[in-house]
C-alpha cells in the first residue's frame, strides 16, 4: 500500500514537472483529451474525492452535460470559524438553487472541515462530508460518484452508477455508505490511485 502511495505521489510530481516544462498548458487545453463516461440527464450531484486531476472534472462535464457548479474549498489563513461556516452555507445554498434550475453540481466528499457522516471504509470507518447527500435530499438529484485519473497525459473520468435512496431518516447515511463503498471498490481495483489525502481519510 505505501509503495502505491509513493508511486502515486511521485507520478503526480512528475506530471507537474511535465506540465511546467510544456509551457503550463491551460486546463481547457488538457481536457480536450478527457474521456467522460455516459451519464444520466442533469440535474446531477457529482460526488468526488481528492484523487488525480480533480479540477478537470467540472470543466470536462460542462462540455458534455451543460452548466456545472463546482465548489472549491480553500484553506484561508486568518478566516474565522463563522466566516468559514458562512462560505460553506453559501456554497450549499447556491448549489441547491443551481440544481433546482436544472444544472449539475460537483462537490468534494472529503473536505478539510465540514459536517460529516461516519461510514464503513476499508477495515474501519471514515468521515464523509454530508453536504452532497443533504443536497440530494433537498432536491431529489441523484449522486454520481466520480474520480479523475491520469492515463499518460490524458485525463479519464471514472463514474459509478447514479445513487438514489428512499425517503427516510437514514437517507443521507445510506447514500454516504454506498458512495464510500464505491470508492473503496475503486481503490481496491486501482491501488496506485490512492493519495495522501485519502490515506488521511482512512486513518481519521
Amino acid at each position, binding site marked *: 500500500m505505501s509503495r502505491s502511495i509513493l508511486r502515486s505521489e511521485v507520478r503526480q510530481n512528475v506530471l507537474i514537472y511535465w506540465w511546467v516544462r510544456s509551457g503550463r498548458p491551460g486546463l481547457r487545453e488538457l481536457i480536450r483529451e478527457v474521456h467522460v463516461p455516459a451519464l444520466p440527464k442533469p440535474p446531477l450531484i457529482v460526488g468526488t474525492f481528492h484523487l488525480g486531476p480533480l479540477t478537470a472534472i467540472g470543466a470536462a462535464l460542462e462540455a458534455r452535460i451543460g452548466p456545472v457548479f463546482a465548489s472549491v474549498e480553500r484553506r484561508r489563513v486568518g478566516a474565522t470559524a*463563522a466566516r468559514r461556516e*458562512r462560505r*460553506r452555507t453559501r456554497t*450549499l*445554498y447556491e448549489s441547491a438553487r443551481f440544481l433546482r434550475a436544472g444544472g449539475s453540481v460537483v462537490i468534494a466528499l472529503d473536505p478539510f472541515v465540514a459536517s460529516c457522516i461516519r461510514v464503513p471504509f476499508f477495515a474501519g470507518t471514515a468521515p464523509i462530508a*454530508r*453536504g452532497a447527500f*443533504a443536497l440530494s435530499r433537498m432536491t431529489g438529484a441523484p449522486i454520481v460518484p466520480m474520480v479523475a485519473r491520469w492515463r499518460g497525459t490524458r485525463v479519464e473520468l471514472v463514474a459509478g452508477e447514479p445513487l438514489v435512496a428512499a425517503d427516510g431518516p437514514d437517507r443521507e447515511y445510506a447514500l454516504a455508505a454506498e458512495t464510500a463503498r464505491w470508492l473503496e471498490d475503486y481503490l481496491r481495483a486501482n491501488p496506485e490511485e490512492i493519495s495522501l489525502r485519502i490515506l488521511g481519510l482512512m486513518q481519521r
Partner: protein
Amino acid sequence: MDPSDVVRAIVQAHAPGTTLDEELPLGAEGLGLDSIAIAEVLLECEERFGASCGQLLESDGLTIARLVRHLGAAT
C-alpha cells in the same frame, strides 16, 4: 400568520428543543445550526415568501431578526 412566526417555525424545525433568540446568529456561535441547516432555512424561506435570500450570506451574523427584516422588505 406573521412573517416572524413563519421564520421562527422554520428555524425551530431545524433546531428542535432550542429556545430561539431573534438576535442570536443562527450558526454555531448562536443557535447552533450547521451550514446545511442554515442553507435549508434560507431555501424554505425563499419558497414561502418568494424572495431571494442569497444576499444575506454576504456578511456574517445572520439572525432571525435580520432574516425577517429582509423578507419584510423584499415582499
